[in-house]
């Protein structure tokens, strides 16, 4: 049974046009980063280990404190500011980015092979049978199709750049090999996530990236805040994972399959628009909300900035957080059957986009601004996939990967410079607070230019990548708001059409705010007077080429990335350019689902489209203008001297007090109830105290009563005996009569 099913997979694979190309080495894509993880991990451990004595109990702890301190100071705390390069740093610098570059080369080779063939059937490479139980067959199988190919290219491409950047950024950290081990492991899981041919395998990657995110956020674990942030990220993600799991269970118990092909084959068992498929999709979306930081589970992402900045760029901007978008694109078939769930996705995405953008307006930590910006942009992507514009969502995912990675790496470059300056003068000021920056453009010119490119891209200024992707999403929303199945669906009593117009408005508002807060960030960081301090100013300088090099590449991508998927109105303007490349590329995967949700024609009339584009450009420009005219970088004071803000500003600065509310409403009650009611009350009190020890006490009390009868007075015994005998005899006599 099992054998035969494996054979059928094997034959399907051998028959595939990709079978004899580089695609047969698809397993190497994740395997290479895994190898990097193993090598770096072992290097990390062998260097750090401090093998204990044979009998640990015999050695008094702490009596050799001094020798300990001295030996371990060599690769000890990052916070003692002893910059001692790790002894395996050179090897690690080679292996860490090396495996990823190799992976990228392989991915590119597979991509080349893929371009030449028709990809209507995905190429599936089955490695081994993972969980064969009864009628459940889960294989460790990798699936190559246009969608996963795009993701693989983004992950390995952007990943390689960020790895190279990390070499410069992290190599003086005592935990350098550990850092690359985690980073390699992350890429391994991320590739597994996008390549997995079934939901459980995807879930392996899904949880695995969460695990690496946990480890990397808490990379500098000696700060409690960092460790807390990592833990928070993992636990909040787990809430989403719960949704993912339940969705899988529902799929399996109703369709009997968990692999993408199997589900595609049996999806007609589900009633389109029915409650079952809606439930499945909503549970999937719960998973997406966790991983991609959407309301109400977005709270972990801003805290995740506690990790090293390249990590924020790779995991918390470019790749992992977009996994939710990928999941919906991957499940487009199911989502297109559930308009209500799709509307939910779009609505949550739109609300998140605006909500996060408002918080982004008042953040002072440069990375926090970018974090909320990420949450907001992810909201955009969900709007895209929510309205069935899957290609648009993936497109924005890609451009966002470019410009947001650039923004994070650029901010990393800024922080690097700031940190080096503060380090040189032994200052303990906050190296990430924008109030301590200002006027950095003269010290970091390359970073300044590149970050402006990214800012224009994210703000949606034409020709930069973000403009195309964002515009495509917004126009899709507008297009679907009339005459599509989504518009006809009813969401909690609200007509889908009205809802979509509302989402469109949310998107526009968020776009305005995006332009404002990004310009604000640029102004406060690079323009105006310098607030770093007299002494520190002299130490500010541009980062080495290992860091600026990747920035330049990303800058180019951010600028021209939009040309990968030019909309129709643009190609009519310049007919030489290829139009909708990405959409056509993704067509085999999401085409039918897109068509189903788009309804009739799908495209807007040219005039309407041009109007929408005009509105979008106006809003983006307006945002920048408002920011430039209204904000006064010159008026800022250092963080330590800033007054406390009040009113709405204070509320925004405190992120609407959502964290505090969750803490009060969920975390504290859970702990208090667990401790006071469940543990002390039920466990120690009722079960142990009353039932278990209670029964023991009862037995003991009974015994005590008995023992009191044993007075030792023979006379008493005689009395008791006689009374008993008389009573017994009396009873006997009575019975006889």
């Amino acid at each position: 049974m099992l054998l035969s099913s494996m054979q059928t997979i094997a034959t399907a694979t051998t028959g595939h046009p990709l079978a004899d190309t580089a695609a047969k080495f698809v397993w190497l894509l994740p395997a290479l980063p895994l190898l990097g993880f193993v090598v770096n991990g072992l290097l990390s451990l062998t260097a750090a280990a401090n093998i204990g004595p044979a009998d640990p109990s015999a050695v008094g702890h702490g009596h050799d404190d001094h020798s300990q301190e001295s030996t371990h100071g060599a690769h000890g705390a990052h916070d003692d500011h002893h910059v001692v390069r790790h002894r395996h740093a050179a090897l690690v610098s080679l292996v860490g980015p090396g495996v990823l570059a190799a992976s990228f080369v392989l991915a590119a080779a597979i991509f080349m092979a893929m371009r030449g063939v028709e990809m209507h059937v995905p190429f599936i490479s089955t490695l081994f049978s993972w969980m064969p139980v009864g009628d459940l067959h889960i294989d460790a199988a990798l699936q190559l199709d246009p969608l996963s190919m795009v993701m693989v290219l983004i992950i390995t491409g952007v990943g390689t750049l960020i790895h190279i950047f990390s070499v410069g950024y992290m190599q003086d950290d005592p935990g350098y090999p550990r850092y690359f081990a985690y980073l390699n492991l992350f890429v391994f899981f991320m590739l597994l996530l996008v390549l997995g041919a079934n939901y459980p395998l995807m879930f392996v990657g899904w949880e695995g990236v969460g695990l690496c995110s946990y480890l990397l956020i808490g990379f500098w674990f000696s700060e409690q805040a960092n460790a807390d942030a990592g833990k928070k990220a993992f636990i909040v993600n787990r809430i989403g994972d719960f949704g993912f799991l339940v969705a899988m269970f529902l799929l399996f118990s109703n369709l009997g399959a968990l692999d993408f092909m199997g589900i595609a084959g049996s999806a007609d068992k589900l009633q389109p628009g029915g409650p079952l498929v809606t439930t499945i999709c909503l549970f999937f979306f719960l998973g997406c909300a966790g991983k991609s930081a959407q309301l109400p589970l977005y709270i972990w992402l801003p805290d995740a900035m506690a990790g090293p900045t390249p990590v924020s760029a790779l995991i918390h901007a470019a790749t992992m957080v977009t996994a939710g978008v990928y999941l919906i694109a991957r499940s487009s078939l199911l989502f297109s059957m559930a308009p209500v769930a799709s509307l939910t996705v779009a609505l949550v995405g739109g609300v998140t986009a605006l909500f996060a953008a408002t918080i982004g307006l008042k953040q002072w930590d440069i990375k926090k601004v970018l974090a909320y910006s990420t949450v907001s942009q992810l909201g955009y992507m969900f709007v895209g996939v929510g309205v069935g514009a899957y290609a648009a969502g993936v497109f924005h995912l890609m451009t966002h990967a470019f410009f947001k990675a650039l923004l994070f790496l650029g901010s990393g470059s800024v922080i690097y410079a700031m940190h080096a300056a503060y380090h040189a003068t032994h200052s303990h000021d906050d190296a990430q607070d924008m109030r301590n920056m200002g006027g950095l453009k003269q010290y970091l010119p390359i970073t300044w230019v590149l970050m402006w490119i990214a800012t224009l891209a994210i703000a949606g200024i034409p020709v930069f990548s973000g403009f195309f992707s964002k515009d495509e999403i917004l126009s899709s929303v507008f297009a679907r708001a009339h005459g599509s199945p989504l518009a006809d669906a009813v969401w909690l009593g609200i007509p889908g059409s009205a809802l979509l117009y509302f989402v469109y408005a949310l998107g526009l508002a968020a776009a305005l705010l995006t332009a404002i807060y990004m310009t604000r960030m640029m102004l406060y960081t690079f323009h105006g007077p310098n607030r770093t301090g007299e002494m520190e100013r002299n130490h500010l300088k541009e980062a080495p080429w290992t860091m600026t090099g990747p920035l330049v590449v990303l800058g180019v991508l951010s600028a021209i990335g939009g040309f990968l998927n030019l909309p129709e109105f643009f190609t009519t303007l310049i007919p030489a350019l290829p139009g909708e490349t990405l959409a056509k590329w993704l067509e085999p995967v999401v085409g039918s689902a897109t068509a189903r949700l788009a309804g009739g024609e799908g495209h807007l009339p040219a005039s309407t489209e041009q109007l929408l584009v005009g509105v979008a450009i106006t809003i983006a420009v307006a945002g920048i203008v408002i920011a430039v005219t209204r904000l006064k970088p010159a008026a800022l004071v250092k963080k330590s001297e800033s007054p406390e803000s009040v009113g709405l500003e204070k509320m925004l600065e405190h992120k609407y007090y959502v964290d505090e509310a969750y803490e009060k409403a969920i975390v504290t009650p859970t702990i208090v109830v667990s401790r006071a009611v469940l543990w002390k009350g039920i466990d120690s009190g009722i079960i142990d105290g009353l039932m278990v020890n209670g029964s023991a006490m009862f037995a003991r009390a009974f015994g005590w009563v008995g023992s009191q009868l044993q007075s030792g007075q023979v006379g008493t015994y005689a009395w008791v005996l006689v009374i008993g005998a008389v009573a017994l005899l009396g009873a006997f006599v009575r019975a006889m009569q």
Partner: protein
Amino acid sequence: MITNEFYPLFYTFNFYVFALLALMSSLFFVTRKSPVSAALWLVSTMFALAVLYVMLDAEFIGIMQILVYAGAIMVVFLFVVMLLNLGQPSEFSDIRKNGPRLVAGFLGILLTAELLTLAWSPLDARLLVTTVPPSVATAGAGGIIGPVAGPLFTEYLLAFELTSVLLLVAIIGAVVLAKKRS
């Protein structure tokens, strides 16, 4: 056998005399303060009972009563009383106070009543032996010991042997207990 016409009356009269003697002696026995006099009244009770045994056709038991009880056991009691020098009415109040005494009396009366109810209840006819009293029937063959000795050495042989072991144990036990620890 005596077949005098007055014999039943004489027999009854004697029975009552010795029964009364036993009753009175036992009452004196429980009320004496001095252990020695109490012991002597108990001996008197036992003699009276021995007579009753004989009158109830248990001549052998009557003899044993005098030999073993009155002769041996009571002597041991007296011997111990003498040994411990407890002959005089003791320095402590030997008899309990009125309250317990009253309750004890009540219990005694209740017990007597119960026992009498049982004693006067009809006999179990299934167990009755239809033959004449054993001592009368076998007076010629096995003498008066025969009827008792027969079952003792046949039916109750095991119990008899165990009793001998019990006596041995009692002897050893008494020696060990009464021996002065050095």
